[in-house]
């Protein structure tokens, strides 16, 4: 309470290095910030949407942070459409990093990552910074596994598709269940659609394995000012995705109301 959550909430000017299109409807945006950005996997940025006339900025997980910052963006509306159409040399402002990321894996800790859709982004960042983990990567069809190449460079990849067009047929929880049954897993990190994360959290709870979920919520600010990003807490009340998370102990999240809202 007594301390502000953020040292610096200045908008940082970045110039776009490139925005590649790994697949239809997706973009990988790489920007060069004015100064160095010390980001942890799981943290996010609030990106200004240039030239779209939108008011609020858009939260995006950081997929890589070194000299440049990288984001994996799926087009779902006006803001993301405008972001993936950025071109080299364009300017974009953002606040980064924000939120609580994944705690780094401890020495010898065995992790399994479970990602779906653009949820692969923070997991790839985490994998790249930690001893090569196993990663279960799910989607409806093979085309949804847009980061499969890149993921396989940093993790032992298990691909899962609902239609079986790529890897195992079914849901990500299938292979996860097998892995957990086999034992020896210390923690599971998950990021993806709410139904997937809810199922992963339940499986982990059943197996008494700790689970961290990298959550999403509609956000107005991204830094604790609006109280918009509430998710129900199992302890009562709410957790705030932008400041308590986005990485939350999956046990502390009450997924049921979120699932109902998504139906």
């Amino acid at each position, binding site marked *: 309470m007594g301390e*502000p959550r953020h040292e610096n909430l200045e908008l940082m000017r970045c110039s776009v290095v490139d925005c590649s299109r790994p697949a239809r409807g997706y973009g990988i945006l790489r920007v060069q910030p004015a100064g160095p950005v010390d980001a942890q996997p799981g943290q996010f940025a609030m990106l200004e949407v240039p030239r779209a006339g939108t*008011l609020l900025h858009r939260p995006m997980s950081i997929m890589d942070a070194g000299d440049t910052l990288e984001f994996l963006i799926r087009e779902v509306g006006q803001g993301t459409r405008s972001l993936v159409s950025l071109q080299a040399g364009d300017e974009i402002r953002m606040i980064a990093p924000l939120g609580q990321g994944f705690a780094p894996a401890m020495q010898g800790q065995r992790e399994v990552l479970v990602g779906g859709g653009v949820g692969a982004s923070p997991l790839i960042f985490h994998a790249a910074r930690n001893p090569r983990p196993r990663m279960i990567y799910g989607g409806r069809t093979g085309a949804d596994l847009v980061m499969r190449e890149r993921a396989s460079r940093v993790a032992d990849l298990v691909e899962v598709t609902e239609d079986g067009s790529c890897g195992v047929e079914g849901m990500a929880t299938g292979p996860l269940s097998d892995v957990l049954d086999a034992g020896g897993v210390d923690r599971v990190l998950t990021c993806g659609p709410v139904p997937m994360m809810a199922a992963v959290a339940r499986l982990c709870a059943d197996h008494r394995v700790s689970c961290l979920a990298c959550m999403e919520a509609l956000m*107005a600010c991204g830094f604790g000012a609006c*109280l*918009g990003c509430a998710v129900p807490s199992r302890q009562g009340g*709410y957790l705030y995705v932008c400041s308590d998370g986005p990485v939350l102990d999956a046990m502390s999240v009450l997924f049921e*109301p979120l699932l109902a809202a998504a139906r």
Partner: protein
Amino acid sequence: MVSTDRLMTRVGPLVLANPVMTASGTWGYGHDVQPAALSAKLGAVCTKGLSLEPRPGNPPPRVCETPAGMLNAIGLANIGVEAFALQVLPVLRQAGVTVIVNIFAKSVGDFARLAERLAREEGIGALELNVSCPNVHEGGIHFGRDPHMAAALTRTVIGASSLPVVVKLTPEAPDIISVARACEQAGACALSAINTIRGMAIDVGTRRPRLAMVYGGLSGPAIRPIALRIVHEVSHAVSIPVVGIGGIGSVEDTLAFLMAGASAVQIGTASFADPMTPFRVIEDLARWCESRETTVKEIIGSVRTGER
């Protein structure tokens, strides 16, 4: 951060270094979002709406974007008056922040208890009565709609606390001028306007309201013309200061509200995209006044109507 005499303004007994405040619910408690030392550079901070007991707020989704605006149904989530008095106020006091405490309650009695409790603390510049929050049934919007109730509430709170009282008007009052005049007569030191306007958005793909509470309060540039008109109307109807609120994000917006008759402004939604907005506005305002050799005091109410 510049703060010359040119920017000085008064809101009732409060003398502010500059006319730029942050709006309640958009700047936390003044020390948690941005450091208290930064908040001290503002004209004042209006803290997040406070109630006697802590409140968790509404279920998500709580916010959504609309054309040039946003809807929110936060539900007045807050830490409650005790935590505020014990954990927040000392930090703000220490940093020299000018604090306006936004409060709400579901009854006149609770309003009085809240005011009494806060009056026991040092370092509060004024209370801002939120009689107008559209997002919770007990948020007290009925107080803000009726001149008699608003006046009675104002009188009670003043009696209970001796702190200066600012009444925050709702644009949904059937007759906002009467409410304004009634509050003035009841002893309010100033009025602030406007709170959000109830709105709705629907996700046509799922056929669901975009907010779990169905309706929420509209804020941001979209409501600015409405807010400016109300500030103009109200400031001509009363002789106490009016604090302008609604879609302000630049020095031009601030000047428009001052010219319309506001003695100070509050910045809300604009800080969500750029939390340095209030400081940028203060600097730009200082430059504007400097280059035109004028002062905020001179600008207030200077709109040239009736000259054509």
